[in-house]
């Protein structure tokens, strides 16, 4: 059965990864970045090898988000953010095909251990079962 596994982040976290520190997000050093790349790379490799990885991507920072709504006159209304600095949003996701909720929970628990600089906020990794893929929820 398939699951959507999501990680979160704020605009400030993205900026910290580029070296711009703020109150809740200390700047990442080159070593911090390398450690994170290596960790995520290993997770992705393992998921590819086990055949559980269906898809996965990181998302661009919240500032590059665009909202599209339906206007009253039938024309779409398009706006950029803004998001407040503290609001966490989807930062990346995996679509995984796992044997059970227990197994995908195990994977999410590993993702949660990703090394980050001291003082970076902790966000839970979120699992959402995907409907219509059969199996237990």
């Amino acid at each position: 059965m398939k699951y959507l596994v999501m990680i979160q982040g704020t605009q400030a976290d993205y900026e910290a990864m580029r070296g711009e520190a703020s109150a809740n997000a200390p700047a990442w050093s080159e070593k911090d970045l390398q450690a994170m790349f290596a960790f995520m790379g290993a997770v992705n490799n393992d998921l590819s090898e086990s055949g559980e990885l269906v898809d996965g991507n990181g998302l661009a920072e919240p500032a590059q988000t665009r909202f599209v709504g339906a206007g009253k006159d039938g024309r779409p209304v398009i706006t950029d953010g803004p998001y407040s600095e503290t609001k966490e949003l989807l930062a990346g996701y995996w679509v995984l095909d796992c044997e059970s909720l227990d197994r995908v929970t195990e994977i999410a628990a590993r993702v949660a251990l990703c090394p980050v600089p001291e003082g970076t906020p902790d966000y839970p990794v979120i699992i959402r079962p995907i409907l219509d893929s059969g199996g237990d929820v």
Partner: protein
Amino acid sequence: MRRPTGVEDLLRSHAPQVLGALVRRYGHFDLAEDSVQEALLAAAQQWPEQGLPDNPRGWLIKVASRRLTEALRSDEARRRREETVAQLTPRDAFTAPAPGESRAPSEDDTLTLLFLCCHPELTAAAQIALTLRAVGGLTTAEIARAHLVPEATMAQRISRAKQKVKGVPFRQPVTEDRDQRLAAVLQVLYLIFNEGYTATSGRDLHRADLAREAIRLTRAVRRLLPTEGAVTGLLALMLLTDARSAARTGPHGELIPLDEQDRGRWDPQAITEGSALVEEALSQGPAGAYQLQAAIAALHDEAARADDTDWPQILALYDILVRRAPEPMAELGRAVAVAMVHGPEAGLAEVAKLEDRLAGHHRLDAVRAHLLEKAGDTEGARAAYRLAAQRTLSVPETRYLQMRAARLLP
């Protein structure tokens, strides 16, 4: 994409000729294309088990023809059309021999197919997809995977493209159109190459096959048009660029810039071949953009160490390039060369002139960042790296730029 086996290579090299034979004889590009795919599939299943037939191309033409006539017969209206066509076609118009007969390689068909697939009516995305499918012999699933789109989307794109070129006569464009159409073919091959080359990290590894496929197709075009400088130049450019691919990314998919690459990991064979092609291309008439870019790539590749790079020569080539083909990315390349020859401040002045035309483009910010770093403006460089990292949507580039910014932290 799996590693191509002997049979797969054989099938890919025959695919355009088999398709050419069918389209020439029956028309119906879309049906012919489906039939060839079915024949290729049958061959891929049967040949490894039963051994190769004596005349593989004849076998494929025979099986594909059978599938095609079956498809035509299945529909009453289609059958009538088939009969009309048969009656209208004089016997000697059947330039392809009967199915199963051996014949000299009809290489021209490959080129005619390429011209058809790169028809000006089609969008660039459709041209690329159709070229990979009809001339490259890739399956829809493979093309979809390489473009990171669902298979259904790619199937739709290909079938719409086939509909569009359905009525186009199967022959090479007339002389006055030819140069322009050849330019379109080369552009599509270059786009395929770049799609494969720019995606180098992790699970996108299969896209490297696109670069290989583009090189293979360009080689095929060069065999047919050996004296066309642009074709020779494009092949040289691809080989000289691809030669560096192993050294281009680090262990975690981050980009490594040219001057920091481990040159021992460059492919010496591709460099030798590419350099020889550059010389040949430059002797084949006035140098166009591909020849000049290939010559620049050759100068980079031939330097044993980054410090040995012949920057004055590269700058001279960029000067000609931006005069012949004024294009902002070429001018940005020239700005780097100016910096290497005349110092970072001179380069920054050139970058500033491009501000309007490349506004918001991460590459402009990245080049500015590098030049500011070289000029000793750490704070300005860090800000420019950050801006570039914010603007790129490529994972390897983001990583590289983030790392560059982090390296300059106080």
